[in-house]
Every structure is written in C-alpha cells, then in structure tokens.
C-alpha cells in the first residue's frame, strides 16, 4: 500500500467568490474568453495567471491585446514553426484577469513534427539578418498606415462635389472601414511580433540548456549576461533623454526646466534662451519615433505615452539635468558593459575544449544573433504600434462623445470591440435616418454599470494559478517567458518550508544593496521615487529607465530572468530580485530593506 501524498492545489475557478458589485462580470467579455465549461474540463485544467503582462483587470475593449498577443504566439508554435513538444497557449479571462494553459503536443506526434520544425526554423536562423530587415519594413509600413487612419464626425450633408461626381456614398463607410482597418492593422503587427520572438527564445533556451549542462550550477544571470545586447533599441528613448539633458547643460538652459509639468511654458522658455532653438530642434528630432514610449506596457487604454504626455519625458530630462550638474555620469557605461560581457564569455569559454567548445561557440553565436530581438521588438510593437493604436481609438471615441454616446473618451474601453462596431453602425444610422441614435440613451448608464463591475473586480488580486499543477512543468516557453517552473509553483503553494520571514524570488541581477523602500503600484507614483531608494513594484516597464539611474536596487512581484526589471538592472549594474509574488504588498514605503540579488532574497531590516 502506498500512501498518496496530499496533492496541493490552487482553487478551482468555480470556487472563487465573485467580489461584491461584480456580479454578472462574465457578460462583459466575449463569450469565448470566459470559462463556459465550469462543470467540466475548464474546472480541472491547470491555468496560471499572466499578471506579468496584464497586472490589472481588463476593460472589455482591452482584451484585444491579450487576444491578439496570445493567439499569435500560439500560431507560430503550432502552425508556422511546428515546435515539436509545444503548441500554443490557451487563454481565458476569469474575474477580469488573464489565465493561461500551455497546450502540449501529444507524445506520439512529437517526432513527426521534427523534420518540418528543422526545415522552417533552419531557414529563419540561416537568413536571420535579411528576414529581420524585412520585418522592420513590414512593421514600419503597418505603423505608417495606422497613422493615416482618421476618425471624424459626419457632415451635416453630403458634399455637393460627391453629388456631382456621383459618388453615392455618405462617408459612414469610411468610419467603418477605418475602424475595421485599425483592428486589422494592429492584428497584423501582432502577427509580425511573434515572427522572431519564439525563435529568439528558442536560441536562448538552447544556449541556456547547454550552459547548464557543461557548467551545472552556472547562475541564470551569467547566461543572460552572455547573450544580452548592449546597444539596444529598447534603451534608445532613455538614451535620447540623457543626450537632451546633456545638451541642455552644455547650452546653459537649466533655468528653463523649473516647472516641467507646464509643457508649453517649458518649451517656450527654452526657445527664448540663447541656444534654445538648437535644443528644440534636437528635442523634436528625438520624438520621432522614440517618444512613442509608454510608462505602461502597451496593453491598456490608460497607458500614457511620452509623445502625448510630454511632462513625463521633460520631467526625466529635468532630473537628468540636475544629475549632470551634480557631476554624475548619466550615460550608461556601454564600453564597460561590453567589456564585462566579453570577459564573462571568454572566461567560461576558456574552461571548455574539443566538442564542447565548438558547441559553445555555435550556440552562443546563435543566441547573440537571435536574442536581441526579444528585447528590441518591444519598442516597435508594444510601444510604437500600440501607442498609435490607442491614440486612434481615442480619436474614434471622440466621435462618439460628440454624438452624445458617452461623456469621456476613455468610456469606449467599456465596450468590446464587437460592440464598438455595433455602436458605430448605430451612430451612422441615427445620422443617416435623421433620428436619434440609440446609443446616447443606452450607453451612459450601461457604461456606469460596467465601470462598477470592473472597479469591483479590480479590488481583488488574481490567483497565481488555478487547479492542480502538473508534477513537473517542462514546457520550455512557459518556463522561459513566464518563469513558471516547478519550483515557482511549489513556492506559490506555500511549499517552501523555510519559515524565515525573508521574501524570495529570482536572483535576476547580482549584488547586494540596503536602503529605504519605495513601493510603486502605478506609473503615476514614479515621481515620488527619491535618490538612493529601493524600488519595490508590482512590475516595471521599459520606460521607467530614468528611475533606474537613481535607485539602489529593485524588487518586483512579477517577472523572471528576462523580465524588464531584470534586464534593466543588469544594464545599470543594480541588484534585482524579481518574481517575489508579494514584495510590493509585504514591504511598505520607508522600511529599511536589504536586497540580495545573488541569492534572490529580500529582508525587511527595520520599519
């Protein structure tokens, strides 16, 4: 007789209570995004929450990012590349949060996929540079077309010229076509997004696995450092601000940056100073495209982009100016970073010979070629494409606001994208018929109702996972992209019997630092961060770069070795512990904490 160990489980979706005020939440989302089979397999399967990309509750329109991203991730595994063991990732929304479940390939079909996999992946790896060059053109063309889309109210009457020419259309079709095109174009760039991403991870994973074999206890961060690009497009926006700050100091323009919350005034004051015109020219040149950069992650309608909120980059510039005036070095020490990376590679390499050395060189070479995409694509899609997309969505929403459908341009986000299309037809119908559209008497109350539900859902944090996890997590992308490992799952389940009070996570960037904590739950709180503090956040975004120049270390709730916080901290030489799960809810601002980026531990030293 064997005694089965008690299997620890996460709650079933059907067991989770609906927060008061959120009743009926499931009707806010498209039917296919919500568990419909809660008496059956949906209530059994293991799902983990992707709070790394979607830390807050979806408004109905915002599901577009989750749907397009995870669908397109899947298509590359399943249909383009035929990754032998891994199909895509199933996704559902539960109580407002996104849960995922990797889809394995049945054992008996894995081998059959190998020849196609090798043929397809082989082609990409052998033609990496030319295909990537083509990628940039495709993505850029999509963005350019997105920019051309306009959404404007319809005129009182069809222009006489259209009568003369016999056009015989009223212009409503442009609104609808442009809306459909908007969705299609953003879908297109999400398809492109994954063209190289899975391959980048694949090359990284291959080198990672090899390094772990020949150097059994090699720290993950050593592998990350060996493949990480240094001169990255993802760091360009921040670098541009540093250059602008340096130029402002050179030209003696410091006095113009007293109150950067006043964007117009600040730029006018710069222009009035001697040398100011030169600086303004540089400032404008930097904006396209580098200010298409969000303080969020591109997946939410409320994400603020630098280009539309210039008080954000100007505030960063002001802070950089102060630091330059204090004699600090603000530019990243690129030469030193490159030298350090080369040293690490050379030292590990020197320990190998024969076949292992040859394999190291090949795998490292591939990873170094393919991996930078994993970081750089983020600027093109999440920042640039999505920045233009959300701006166009607001432009469209203003047409509805003008037609009395709702009061605020953000209200559109409470409709699904299918409902927006319906509302659009409602709008043009009312206009065409010459009667009241239905929307103005329907949507304001409905949006208020939905807002109440979303707010109620947002009052609860998601479960890290649902149902019983598998004994072993082996799916490579799940481990790589989300840091969902067997150990991580056990830790969530409270299986770590170490009973000390330390907060643990991934040793994402080496070093040890002590300092006062600054807990940041939202990008709007970033201005509170003081020099020498330790940033404690749910998650960080690439555009928080300027903050990393003044903090001593970082702790995040969410994210793995390749999360943004980890990458940037390695770049800035700051200790980081990521994926703690509860760092930002356990630690309070002002507490003295010790971050050990080597051991992945955070200790609260005193209140």
């Amino acid at each position: 007789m064997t005694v089965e160990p008690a299997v620890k489980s996460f709650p079933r979706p059907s067991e989770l209570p609906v927060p008061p005020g959120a009743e009926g939440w499931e009707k806010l989302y498209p039917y296919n995004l919500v568990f419909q089979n809660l008496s059956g397999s949906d209530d059994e399967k293991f799902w983990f929450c992707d709070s790394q990309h979607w830390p807050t509750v979806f408004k109905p329109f915002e599901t577009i990012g989750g749907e397009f991203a995870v669908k397109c991730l899947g298509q590359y595994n399943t249909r383009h590349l035929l990754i032998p063991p891994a199909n895509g990732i199933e996704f559902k929304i539960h109580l407002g949060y996104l849960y995922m479940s990797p889809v394995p390939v049945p054992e008996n079909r894995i081998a059959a996929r190998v020849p196609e996999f090798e043929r397809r992946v082989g082609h990409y790896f052998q033609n990496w540079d030319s295909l990537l060059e083509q990628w940039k053109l495709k993505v850029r063309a999509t963005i350019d077309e997105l920019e051309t889309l306009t959404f404007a109210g319809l005129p009182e009457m069809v222009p006489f010229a259209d009568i003369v020419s016999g056009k015989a259309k009223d212009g409503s079709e442009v609104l609808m076509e442009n809306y459909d095109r908007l969705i299609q174009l953003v879908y297109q760039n999400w398809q492109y997004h994954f063209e190289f991403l899975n391959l980048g991870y694949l090359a990284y994973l291959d080198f990672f696995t090899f390094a772990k074999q020949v150097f059994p206890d090699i720290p993950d961060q050593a592998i990350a450092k060996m493949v990480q690009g240094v001169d990255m497009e993802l760091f360009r926006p921040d670098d541009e601000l540093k250059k602008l700050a340096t130029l402002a100091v050179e030209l003696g323009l410091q006095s113009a940056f007293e109150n950067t919350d006043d964007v117009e005034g600040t730029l006018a004051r710069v222009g009035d100073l001697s040398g100011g015109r030169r600086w303004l020219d540089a400032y404008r040149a930097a904006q396209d495209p580098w200010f298409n950069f969000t303080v969020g992650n591109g997946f939410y309608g409320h994400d603020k982009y630098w280009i539309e909120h210039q008080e954000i980059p100007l505030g960063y510039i002001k802070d950089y100016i102060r630091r330059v005036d204090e004699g600090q070095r603000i530019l990243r020490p690129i030469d030193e970073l490159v030298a350090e990376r080369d040293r690490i590679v050379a030292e590990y390499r020197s320990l190998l010979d024969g076949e292992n050395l040859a394999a190291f060189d090949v795998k490292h070479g591939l990873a170094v070629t393919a991996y930078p995409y994993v970081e750089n694509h983020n600027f093109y899609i999440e920042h640039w494409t999505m920045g233009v997309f959300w701006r166009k969505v607001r432009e469209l929403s203003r047409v509805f606001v003008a037609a009395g459908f709702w009061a605020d341009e953000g209200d559109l986000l409470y409709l699904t994208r299918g409902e927006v299309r319906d509302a659009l037809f409602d709008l043009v119908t009312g206009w065409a018929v010459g009667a009241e559209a239905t929307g103005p008497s329907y949507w304001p109350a409905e949006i208020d109702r939905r807002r109440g539900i979303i707010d109620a859902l947002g009052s609860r944090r998601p479960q890290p996972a649902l149902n019983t996890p598998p004994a072993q997590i082996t799916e490579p992308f799940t481990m790589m992209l989300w840091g969902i490992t067997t150990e991580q799952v056990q830790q969530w389940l409270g299986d770590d019997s170490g009973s000390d009070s330390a907060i643990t996570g991934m040793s994402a960037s080496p070093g040890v630092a002590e300092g006062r904590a600054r807990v940041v739950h939202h990008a709007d709180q970033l201005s509170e961060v003081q020099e020498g503090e330790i940033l404690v956040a749910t998650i960080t975004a690439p555009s928080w770069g300027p903050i990393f120049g003044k903090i001593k270390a970082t702790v995040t709730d969410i994210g793995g070795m390749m999360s943004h916080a980890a990458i940037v901290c390695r770049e800035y030489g700051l200790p980081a512990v990521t994926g703690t799960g509860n760092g930002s809810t356990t630690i309070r601002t002002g507490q003295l904490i010790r971050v050990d980026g080597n051991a992945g531990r955070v200790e609260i030293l005193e209140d």
Partner: protein
Amino acid sequence: MSGFDTRYVQFFDGGTEPDHALLGGKCASLVTMTAAGMPVPPGFAVTTALYDAFVEESGLRDVIANRLNRLDPDDVVSVDAVSAAIRDEICARPVPERLRRPVIEAWADFQGRFERPVPVAVRSSATAEDLPDASFAGQQDTYLWLVDEHDVHDHIRKCWASLYTSRAITYRLRNAVPEDGLSMAVAVQKMVHARVAGVAMTLNPRNGDRSKITIDASWGVGEAVVSGHVTPDNILVDKVLMCIVEEHVGDKHIELVPDGAGGRLVERDVDAARRAVRSLTDDQVKAVAELAKRAERHYACPQDVEWALDADLPDGQNLLLLQSRPETVHSSKPKPVAAPATASPPPVGFSLGSITAHLTAGRAASVTN
C-alpha cells in the same frame, strides 16, 4: 619600504624583483606570490648579500676556508667537529653594527604594522645548488613562534649556520660543489593567527565543473577543516561572476586556536552564537574565491589552496595564502560533456539538431515522472 637598503633586507610586499641569487628560493617565491596577488603571511628577507658581507667583514670567510681545507668527507668524526666549530663561529662572532642596522630597522617596521607584538617564524632560504636536494628541504631550519628581537637575530644566524651541517658539508665535498658563492638568505615571516581558515578548490569536486570554486571554512586554524574535525561551511562560488551559487552552513562546534605565544594549538568549543553562522562574510567569500582564482591562473592548472583570515591584520589585508598545490584528484576526471545531440554531423553555422534534442529531451524526462 624605500627607507631600507634593499641590498640587505627586502620585504615580501616591497615591490622588488624576486632575485633568486639575493633571496634564495623560498624568499624569492614569497616575493613572487605577493606580487601576483597571492598574499602570503607578511615578512621580510634577510638577503644573501648580508650574509656575504658578514662572513667577509667578520673574517669568517678565511676561517671557514681553512677549516674545510683538506677535510675528508668520509671522516665522519672530523666532519662533525668541523661542522660544529664553523656553526659556533657563525653564531658567536659579532655582526658588525652596519649589518645589524638593516635587520633592526626592518624588525621595527614589521612590528609597527600590528597593534601588539606578533610572533614570527625564521626560515632559511637557500640558493639552489648550495645544499642537498629536495629531500633535505624539510630539514632546512625553521624556527617558529619567536617574539623577542634578540631571539630573532640569533635564529637568523642559526639559519646561516645551517649551511654547515655535517650533511651539507659532506654533500658539497662529495659533489665538488665549490664554496665560492655559497650563501644563505633568511625569511622572517609572521606566524599566522587564524581567526577563520580553510581550503578552496578551483573546481566543483562533485562534478568536476571548472567554472566553480568550492570553499570550506571554519573558525580558528585550518587544521580542524583539513582533518575533518568539524563540519565546515561549504560554499560554492561561480568563478566567472564571483557570486555564491550554493552554500551549506556547517555546525562548527569546535575550533583550534594558538595557545598564547607558545604556538601549541588548543581545541575549544565554539560559542553558540558563532556555531551556526557562516564564518565568512560575503566579501570574504569573494576575496577567498579571488585568491584561489589568482592561484589557478598563476600556476595554470586547478589549485587546492589553504588560506586563513589573520586576526592581527586589518580587514581587507587579512586574507593569507598558506599553501597552493595542483588539484589532481578531480581535475583529471572527465569533464561534463553535453549529451550528444544527434547522430548526424553537426550542421554548419548552428546546431539545429541539438535544439531539437533539447526540446524533445524535456518531454522525455517528463514522461518518466
């Protein structure tokens, strides 16, 4: 150290060239290691030039030559008598003041580095051909736990005198080693006062992984670690990133400490507060690992290093290298080899086969679970 006449006295960390003829083998090695970032216990060398000047100016040179003249190496009784007479002369004849001065000054400078007087070892440092081969090396004179300045002076002379032991005399006569140029340097070196000590190996003995450094550390003198009397702290450090990869804090219940100046080691219980805490700080772990890494680089093969943190030296300067020898047990074992990915020859440019193998291997592993 510029104040010293480096003809006669050279500190190990004085930045001088390791001149073998002037320093003898031992001292030259101590200077070399210090310069290479492998700090041996501090001290200074009394050079062969000082010995040469002494035998010259004191008239000993002729006395010795006369006594050795026509000595029959097979006449054991005579050799013993000559040996004793020469050694007595070396130890008794006054050292001219001008030659005593450099040693007195070096001693004062050396002791001035510490808060209280520290005991030293005085060791002979021969130049290669003067004495019998390595089997004699252990019999070269070493005097431990000396504190008194006069004792030190006396024992420097005893080291000089060891050039004329019966065996040394016999050896030179039989092998026709000329007396011309025969000389001896002497090392005056701090006795190690280990607060924490242990060993470091520049690989992981569990799997032969050469990208790691394994450190064993415990309180007190390292003998307790080497002999297995305590369970030391065991720390695995990545050799490239220099970060701790794994650690096990040992239950270090006893420590060996020197019994005052007498040099005897006494065993005592470790108080509860220190027993279960790691005996090295993070910075010290890194320093030990870097020391071992430098030794490996210097000797160009994996090393097994004995080290100690000296209680008499300030933080940052207290890590001492006691011994470094080639690691032969584990480094000769086969290294970890990545599983062969595929039977087919590796594709040019990248290794798709092994990517596939990794992906499918992950699945195979899960099936067995």
